[in-house]
């Protein structure tokens, strides 16, 4: 007698249902897997029966199965809507969603565990897209928040720091009004106004460099083959020396080869490093400046005596608005070292700081040749 249609349907429902069925025994080994599932993973029944269910999964899923799903199943008796990747014969992965539930004896001992598995390629892709979109949105929000904080700091610091030199100019001009006769005093006041204006201009220059560095993808430099870097650096160092007659700056500059660089920017780097050393270093000890060429790299060191820079400050030393606590001179946006670092990076070089023999040594090095400059140019 042939099988009745209802009986055929029940057996067929298990084997050829439009979803995968797996039954596990009390040791979590596979007892049955239906034809639909076997077809998805391209396996024969005898290849999976007796194996542990995690063996059907990719490695990440295996770990998660053992650390999350299996314990959860034991604790609450079911798990629903778990996203997994089944491993096929050839190693490719099939994204699926699985439900599982336990069958227990009246005494509570585990008899078997049933898994129902749905292929879910499009849905999983959609979910991943959603996750990626959410992560992007979160990153964007974080970036905007950081920027807003930066902008606020920026305005506050700029306002604070511009006030001092502008106040000096204002006081100076008032004094000039009532000081027509005393020529010596007038000259002093004019000199003071000039110095304050320079400080204000320096601040504005820093701010503009900063804004360019932040807004554009890279810091603006104009690279050229320079044969006059030696004189340029000596000049800028002696300028700083003239502005600080009370301090001693010793230097040993030996640029024996042409260097591909933006000479003005490298001078700015030296000026900022030396100013920083004067500002933070021990006032009784000379600031030492060295520059030399070694194996096709330009090296520079600016050293000042002083306590080693604490680690938590080192971390953010080259970040904008950083100011050391010991800073004697408040005329600065804390952009000096940030700009130094930007200049270094724009030259394919790098900055580092290390304590050595009771000194803080700022080191800069960069290649003497830049790709963008024609090698036939002798400089």
């Amino acid at each position, binding site marked *: 007698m042939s099988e009745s249609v209802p009986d055929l349907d029940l057996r067929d429902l298990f084997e050829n249902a439009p979803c995968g069925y797996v039954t596990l025994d009390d040791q979590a080994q596979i007892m049955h897997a239906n034809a639909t599932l076997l077809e998805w993973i391209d396996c024969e029944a005898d290849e999976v029966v007796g194996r542990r269910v*995690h063996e059907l999964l990719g490695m990440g899923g295996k*770990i*998660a199965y053992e*650390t999350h799903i299996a*314990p959860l199943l*034991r604790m609450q008796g079911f*798990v629903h809507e778990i996203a997994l990747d089944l491993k096929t014969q050839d190693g490719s992965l099939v994204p699926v969603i699985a439900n599982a539930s336990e069958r227990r004896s009246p005494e509570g001992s585990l008899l078997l565990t049933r898994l129902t598995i749905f292929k879910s390629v499009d849905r999983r892709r959609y979910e991943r897209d959603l996750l990626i979109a959410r992560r992007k949105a979160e990153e964007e929000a974080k970036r905007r928040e950081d920027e807003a904080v930066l902008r606020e700091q920026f305005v506050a610091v700029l306002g604070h720091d511009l006030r001092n030199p502008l106040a000096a100019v204002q006081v100076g001009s008032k004094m000039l009004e009532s000081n027509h006769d005393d020529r010596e005093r007038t000259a002093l006041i004019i000199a003071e106004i000039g110095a304050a204006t320079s400080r204000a201009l320096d601040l504005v220059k820093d701010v503009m460099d900063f804004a360019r560095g932040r807004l554009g993808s890279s810091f603006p430099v104009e690279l050229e083959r320079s044969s006059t870097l030696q004189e340029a650096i000596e000049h800028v160092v002696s300028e700083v020396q003239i502005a600080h007659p009370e301090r001693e700056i010793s230097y040993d500059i030996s640029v024996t080869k042409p260097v591909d660089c933006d000479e003005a920017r490298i001078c700015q780097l030296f000026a900022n490093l030396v100013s920083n050393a004067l500002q933070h270093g021990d006032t009784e000890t000379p600031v030492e400046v060295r520059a030399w060429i070694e194996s096709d790299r330009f090296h520079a060191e600016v050293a000042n005596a002083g306590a080693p820079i604490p680690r938590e400050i080192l971390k953010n030393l080259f970040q904008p608005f950083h100011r050391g606590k010991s800073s004697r001179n408040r005329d600065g946006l804390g952009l000096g070292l940030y700009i130094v670092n930007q200049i270094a990076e724009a030259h394919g070089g790098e900055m580092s700081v290390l304590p050595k023999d009771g000194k803080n040594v700022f080191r800069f090095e960069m290649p003497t040749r830049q790709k963008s400059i024609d090698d036939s140019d002798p400089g």
Partner: protein
Amino acid sequence: MVFAHGFGCDQAMWLPVAEKLQEEYRIVLFDYVGSGQSDLSAYDKDRYSSLEGYAQDVVDIGRELGLTNAIFVGHSVSAMIGALATIAAPELFSDLIMVGPSPRYLNADGYTGGFEEQQIEELLQFLEDNHMGWSAAMGPAIMGNPDRPELGERLTNSFCATDPEIARQFARTTFLSDNRDDLTKIPARTLVLQCSDDIIAAESVGRYVADNVPNAEFVMLDASGHCPNLSAPDEVTEAIRSFV
């Protein structure tokens, strides 16, 4: 007797064993910060970026409770957390029971931990795909446990649901740890309980632990998988009893 859960779920993992021992011992169960019902606001990214941070919590709990010569039972990564706690504060625990321990999950020169870094990334991907009901916290389904009243009423999946970001960090801290050098410093009497077919901590890894801890005993359980505390609580309980 202090029971500590591993990476993935929470203290409920230990209930089937702990309730069998509650007549004989004072039982301490807890959730690590970031897991189970812990106060997530106490989570500190830096503190919990190494197992030492978790071990310090174990030491803090032990000191707060005034424990001396207690027994620490740690599952999975907690076996190593307990080891670090016994090294940091030897007076707290006289006995250390490690269930499925691994001092390093990644393979290294001359050492087979069982995992490559890429596979840890796959695990993180899984955690990302499965929030385990975490984000359903707005309208949670309360689950009664008529069969297992000891579990009480809990939110569905809450045993193993964590803030996804914390779960990622715990996974990193766990699977990227290397505490092989600490094994020789463990002062406590130690029992290593090992299952067969444990893909998280293979038998060879369990034996490596037992071989390197100065005063250790190795017991191979009949249970298979990574969670004998759930799949074979009777066997685990007996093994603990006969050791202590």
